[in-house]
């Protein structure tokens, strides 16, 4: 696992300061979505090999949610962004 994460607010920090929530690429289904769709969103997880984006919470630092773009195979970290900025970027991309 990538052991050093460069938080956009705090600088380079060890992974022990963070809690990992998981895949950041999924979108929440609408409340009216089918049970199968909700089942998939809540319980079914991929185990990606390679580059993927994840939610990381900087629990012991600035307490902000971050989106970490990293490779699970090479441990390379490509980008770390604040989750709020990431959501904004995604909303603008969808427009």
């Amino acid at each position, binding site marked *: 696992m990538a052991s050093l994460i460069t938080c956009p*607010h*705090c600088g*380079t*920090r*060890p992974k022990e*300061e963070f809690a990992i929530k998981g895949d950041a690429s999924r979108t929440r289904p609408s409340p009216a979505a089918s049970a199968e769709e909700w089942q998939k969103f809540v319980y079914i997880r991929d185990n990606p090999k390679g580059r993927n984006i994840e939610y990381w919470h900087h629990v012991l*630092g*600035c*307490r902000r949610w971050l989106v970490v773009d990293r490779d699970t195979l090479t441990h390379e970290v490509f980008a770390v962004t604040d989750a709020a900025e990431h959501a904004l970027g995604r909303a603008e991309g969808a427009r």
Partner: protein
Amino acid sequence: MNGPFSLRHPLDGAVSAYPAVNANHVTIYPEPQAISVCALQGEEAAVAATLDALAGDGLRRVGPGEWLLVKHRADSALLSDIKAKTGASALVTDQSNGRVILTIEGPDCRAILAKIVPVDLHPDAYPVGHSGNVFFAHVSAGLARIGTDRFEISLMRSFALFAFEELMEMGLEFDLTAGFAT
């Protein structure tokens, strides 16, 4: 266990009443002041400017739009001043009884902290005036560099004794001493 909670300092009994003061020394402030300020969205820059003018060198950064104002000796007018000047643009909470403020100073203080804090404390990476929350002996603590060989640590009250004991143990080889500020 009588009397108000705030009258009993969490580190009471952990240090001698008449401590030795070596070159490497931890000073505990018995009645500090810590005020948490969270700016509302869009008000961050204005609140930062107000706090800069009010708190000066006691301003500690926590995260974006969030600060902890630290005074080693309580200033009774500060809380109402901040509330009046930030108005509706920020949430202001008094954390004085919830925080333990101490400073560590001496020629080896960086070497001692390096055993507890997994963050680069070289003056180029963590210059004087820099602050933030760090992983400190497995708990979160505010760490601010207030001098070349002087750091300020703000601990949550309930973790304070544990983290303080860890700090003193790491300082054993450097003859670290500790005492309350007089």
